[in-house]
């Protein structure tokens, strides 16, 4: 069996999220070096604050300032920081109950080693130099030897409160398409289109995905199809796509390759866009070094009868 294909795949997206009034006050407060909690119906102060009471689900809006100092309630030593984490040198993950709060805030504690951290130790916030209204406005915690820091007496009202955050996220994968699609892609690089036949209903899937979705069984028998095929249906593209160097208008079509049990899609070239029609016979056009056809062009044969492809639209 041919070598399994693999390729790097990065999934990256900047998530834009709107904030409720409590989240907005908390994150705006961090920008201003003020830490706000929210008081629940039973009098507890939650930091970080939430919009709804975790016990009763009631809306809670009573903001309370707490100190930038607090006590570690649990910790874990991270000797190998990972991408995106608050510090790039070894640090302790900590839950910190800030003075005046009843719950723990998750963040990093900057200490030289695991011997320098213990549950119950006193810490204070180290503020980031540039702050925008995000949890990362807290750079990390650092050891602190003292009682509760003085609160600023803030009400939680801000003139230019932030209303949303942009949270970038990126995950890196090594993608593998599996057995059936690997075989398809290998064959395609030799300018052959190879599908797989369902052992039960005999339909030939192009491209193959490894299973027949009608019968729910594995496909294994490889069947070379094409290279010629029939346009079964098409559309005319009038809008230029970003990063795509194709003159509009052009035709994008469903093409049933001879021997295939379903149509694949591709661009039609070598013919004016307004002369493409259902039943047009086409053949792939390859460019040097490409792993798949650039487009399909007319063969010059008579058009296929509708009866021959009506099940393959």
């Amino acid at each position, binding site marked *: 069996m041919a070598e*399994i294909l693999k390729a790097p795949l990065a999934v990256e997206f900047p998530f834009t999220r709107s904030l409720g009034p409590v989240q907005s006050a908390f994150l705006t407060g961090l920008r201003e070096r003020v830490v706000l909690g929210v008081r629940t119906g039973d009098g507890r102060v939650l930091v970080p604050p939430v919009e709804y009471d975790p016990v009763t689900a009631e809306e809670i809006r009573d903001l309370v300032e707490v100190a930038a100092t607090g006590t570690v309630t649990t910790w874990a030593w991270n000797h190998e920081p990972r991408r995106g984490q608050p510090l790039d040198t070894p640090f302790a993950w900590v839950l910190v109950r800030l003075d005046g709060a009843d719950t723990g805030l998750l963040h990093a504690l900057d200490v030289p080693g695991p011997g320098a951290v213990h549950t119950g130790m006193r810490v204070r916030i180290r503020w980031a130099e540039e702050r925008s209204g995000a949890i990362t406005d807290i750079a990390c915690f650092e050891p602190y030897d003292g009682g509760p820091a003085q609160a600023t007496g803030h009400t939680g009202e801000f003139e230019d409160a932030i209303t949303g955050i942009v949270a970038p996220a990126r995950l890196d994968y090594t993608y593998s398409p599996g057995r059936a699609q690997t075989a398809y892609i290998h064959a395609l690089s030799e300018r052959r289109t190879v599908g797989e036949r369902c052992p039960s209903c005999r339909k030939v899937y192009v491209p193959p995905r490894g299973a027949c979705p009608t019968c*729910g069984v594995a496909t294994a028998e490889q069947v070379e199809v094409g290279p010629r095929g029939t346009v079964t249906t098409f559309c005319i593209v009038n809008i230029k796509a970003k990063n795509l160097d194709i003159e509009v208008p052009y035709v994008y079509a469903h093409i049933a390759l001879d021997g295939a049990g379903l149509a694949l899609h591709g661009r039609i070239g070598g013919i004016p866009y307004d002369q493409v029609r259902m039943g047009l016979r086409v053949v792939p056009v390859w460019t040097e070094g490409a792993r798949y056809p650039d487009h399909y062009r007319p063969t010059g044969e008579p058009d296929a009868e509708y009866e021959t492809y009506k099940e393959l639209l």
Partner: protein
Amino acid sequence: MRDIALVAFAQTDHRRTSDDLSEVEMLMPVLHDVLDQTGLKTADIGFTCSGSSDYLAGRAFSFTLALDGVGAWPPISESHVEMDGAWALYEAWTKLLTGDADTALVYSYGKSSPGSVRDVLTRQLDPYYVAPLWPDSVALAALQAQALIDAGDTDEPALAAVAARSRADAVANSHAQLRGSVPQGDYLVRPLRTGDCPPIGDGAAAVILAAGERARELCRRPAWIRGIDHRIEAHGLGVRDLTDSPSTRLAAEKAGAFERPVDTAELHAPFTSQEVVLRKALRLGDEVRVNPSGGALAANPIMAAGLIRIGEAAAGIHRGESDRALAHATSGPCLQQNLVAVLEGDPR
């Protein structure tokens, strides 16, 4: 209420990588296995429900491709949860309760190998206050483990014993990924060592549910679901008491777990420290066999490992090795959400 039972269970061999297989190629053998066990065909199944997450392999809408393995054309009655398959089983159970269907196929799968699962799982966290810090799954479990140590509920040797017992029991489980003598290793995130953490791997599982007499026709000794319930902890990690799991206890209560003792418990505790929390929450004594399969410390295909706990508990009843078993599944950081099912076999 209708009596509903698990009548068949199958799982793949769980492996560190499966890059020779697409998700549907990995899944299909277990679907065929449970259908063969019952003699059912896809067309005989009243409802199909699956659990998976696109984030694991970074493949959008992968669950629609996985349906190829079911044979979903002409259209079948089908649903999907972006959760462990245990929750897909819960949905199927409610569907059967309504009387809309008499049989259900439930499956789930996860391919963790294409990505970095510790980082992937950060994306399930609170997106405002927690996810921007990228705290990985091991780090969060380590915070919970330290809280347990501070509370005097466990210590490192006790955690190592949980790891050793799980991998020793897994010797009898040919599907397990990590079996036999496995060194505790170095700290991954202290206090957790590599031995306290689950293996990362790919795998799939499937079960068939059936109601009433249909279950007896399909299985010699059906594993009847006497109760099933799932509950969740407060959203904020710092709001919770990480040394306890009130949501597990409540789910167990609602599922009737405390009405009579169970002989076996399959607990979905990916980290050794989480077994300590669950044993306490479920009031399991030493007379209960915990994770004879080796549990998630022996094989943890994410999105399937919870369903596998229910499947393993049921398979023990099918084989006549257990009469009343508890199965638990979890989801999210530090046992955020918990499902408990109580299964029983007919008297022998």
